[in-house]
């Protein structure tokens, strides 16, 4: 996220020159950070849940055959295990990780947005000359 400021310096200069206040810059940077994090979070969530479901069925088949053949043949007994463990999504853990991500995003975006808003307009403009 630190790249935001370096890459956004030019934008800060332009925006300040046409009338953006420090607080406008802050809002823009916070919104940008949240949009990036939200996109990353949604991609991660879709990939994570999708992969979970995609892998669940082959993993269940392999596990069933491992229990029924290898374990049963070797030891004579096999304790059946619920195959739901392969496709279960722990909503509680998901909620905790989402909350942690949200807190980190708020903190980091606030720090970066404050830094960005404090850049002098002249410094920002000259960075692009």
């Amino acid at each position, binding site marked *: 996220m630190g790249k935001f400021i370096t890459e956004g310096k030019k934008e800060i200069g332009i925006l*300040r020159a046409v009338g953006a206040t420090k607080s406008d810059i802050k809002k823009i940077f916070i919104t940008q950070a949240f949009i990036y994090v939200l996109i990353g979070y949604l991609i991660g969530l879709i990939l994570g849940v999708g992969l979970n479901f995609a892998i669940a069925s082959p993993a269940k088949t392999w596990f069933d055959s491992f229990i029924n053949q290898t374990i049963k043949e070797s030891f004579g007994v096999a304790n059946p295990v619920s195959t739901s463990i392969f496709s279960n999504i722990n909503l509680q853990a998901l909620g905790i990780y989402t909350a942690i991500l949200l807190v980190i995003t708020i903190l980091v975006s606030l720090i970066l947005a404050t830094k960005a808003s404090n850049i002098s307009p002249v410094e920002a403009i000259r960075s692009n000359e």
Partner: protein
Amino acid sequence: MENKKIVEVKNLTKIYTKGGVKITILNNISFDLLMGEDLVIVGPSGSGKSTLLHILGGLDTPTAGKIFIDGDCINDFSDEKLSLMRNQKIGFVFQFFHLIDYLTAEENVALPLILSKTNIQNTKERAELLLF
């Protein structure tokens, strides 16, 4: 009305300190710019033209001296007031193309109006009018 002072610069001085060395960029300059008047500032590279324009536009602060824009002394303006002044009274044409890459040409033109929270339809119409 024609004699109204739009810009008034009084004893403006700008000194930068670089590595402990003081460099005087603008040394006690004064001038007035009247409404309807054109003013051209010429000088070699590094002579302080940009610094002067940055100070007049409220992007930089003077070391000494007073700046009046449209009758208001901008020296003690808050960030909000300076930003509003830039938005409503100053137009910058930069030496290099200062455009926001991810915005369209129309959005770049409309930027001051977007920042002033002008009605979206009016903003679009004015930007289109200026572009086409």
